[in-house]
């Protein structure tokens, strides 16, 4: 390879690059997370591609909104002299804690009790103060949203409000904008504009709204489908909107359909992704791909489904569900 060719390759080929800052590895249109076809689990009618968001540097799709939210808050001087606090099912907390560690900031996270121990341990390893919170902590005013309500109480209580600042992923437009400006364009570019369906889970709804909005602007015929778990589900990161408050950043105008999935189907598909595709994904991916197969089995096209995180943080969940079978 000539010196000139190598020089170009170093700038453009991610595998050859030297990075000065791990934040450069967060997905962007110049350096997207991979889109991988499901070789066995695509349907006869449609190719299903999985966007592997667990290849972001801190392990999930939440790296994107966490990075943007903190970057904007820092630019606006909101972080000065304050500790960050955030309610999180784990991945946003991990991303925020990693970024806070890089920035030299302190962080507290409130996290539902049911989240795997692996995630809580990771948060503590990153230096976060963790408040495991029962869902029914505030049964009168905030049923099922104890962690969110507890985080708000840090920034609202007289004793603590001047010491804490909350990015507030459920109401922060920068969550949605992170996906509008990065994930959406990446999917459009990687599919060369041929994407027909986009599938993502209902959580904070940043991905759904941001990617949905971007893709619809490119082609209004693209179908955007939201995957919602059953009530009392065991799918961390997803939310049933009948038992949890609807995030204000959700824009229902860009969602064509809300489809429900049960835990059994979600976990079965997760196992199939491990065993038939070699993809070690988290259970929310199983939920999303289950619905993608169901819809695309009838409608055809080129589908993109989000894989928010890997299965490595869910070994306890898998053990509980599948026992010794794994």
């Amino acid at each position, binding site marked *: 390879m000539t010196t000139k060719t190598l020089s170009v390759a170093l700038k453009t080929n991610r595998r050859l690059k030297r990075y000065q800052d791990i934040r450069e590895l967060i997905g962007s249109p110049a350096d997207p997370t991979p889109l991988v076809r499901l070789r066995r689990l695509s349907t006869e009618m449609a190719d299903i591609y999985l966007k592997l968001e667990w290849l972001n540097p801190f392990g999930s799709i939440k790296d994107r909104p966490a990075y943007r939210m903190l970057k904007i808050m820092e630019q606006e001087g909101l972080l000065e002299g304050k500790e960050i606090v955030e309610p999180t099912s784990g991945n946003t907390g991990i991303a925020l804690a990693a970024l806070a560690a890089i920035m030299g900031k302190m962080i507290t996270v409130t996290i539902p009790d049911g989240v795997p121990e692996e995630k809580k341990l990771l948060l503590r390893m990153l230096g976060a103060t963790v*408040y495991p*919170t029962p869902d029914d*902590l*505030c*049964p*009168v*005013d*905030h049923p099922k949203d*104890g962690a969110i*309500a*507890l985080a708000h*109480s*840090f920034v*609202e*209580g*007289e*004793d*603590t409000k001047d010491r804490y600042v909350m990015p507030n992923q459920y109401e922060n437009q920068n969550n949605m904008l992170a996906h509008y400006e990065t994930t959406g364009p990446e999917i459009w570019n990687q599919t060369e504009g041929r994407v027909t369906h986009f599938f993502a889970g209902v959580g904070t709804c940043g991905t759904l709204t941001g990617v949905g909005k971007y893709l619809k602007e490119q082609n209004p015929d693209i179908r955007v489908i939201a995957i919602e778990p059953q009530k009392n589900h065991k799918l961390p990161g997803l939310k049933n909107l009948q038992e949890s408050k609807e995030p204000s950043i959700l824009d229902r105008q860009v969602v064509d359909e809300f489809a429900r999935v049960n835990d059994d189907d979600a976990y079965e598909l997760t196992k199939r992704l491990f065993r038939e595709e070699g993809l070690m994904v988290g259970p929310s991916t199983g939920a999303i791909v289950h619905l993608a197969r169901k819809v695309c089995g009838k409608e055809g096209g080129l589908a993109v489904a989000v894989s928010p995180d890997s299965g490595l943080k869910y070994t306890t969940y898998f053990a509980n569900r599948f026992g010794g079978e794994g």
Partner: protein
Amino acid sequence: MGEKEQINLVKELDLTGTVCPMTSYQARLQLSRVNDGDIVKITLKKGDQVKDVSQTIKSEGHRVIEVERDDANEILRLLVRKGG
């Protein structure tokens, strides 16, 4: 306050500067750290958090044995016995 309660009063928790559900969280946390039969005094601002804290106390198996009202400062002081 009776003599028996004075002997067992092991902690005083001022939650007037916090809002729900931090009030319930701290009440639950601090009660988990004392022994059965011990008494914790919890001071709260009047408002919806009183209902949440009361429900938390009851659901955790503890008992409010006395309520002192301070209407001038709009606060309530609850004496709670761990374990009922």
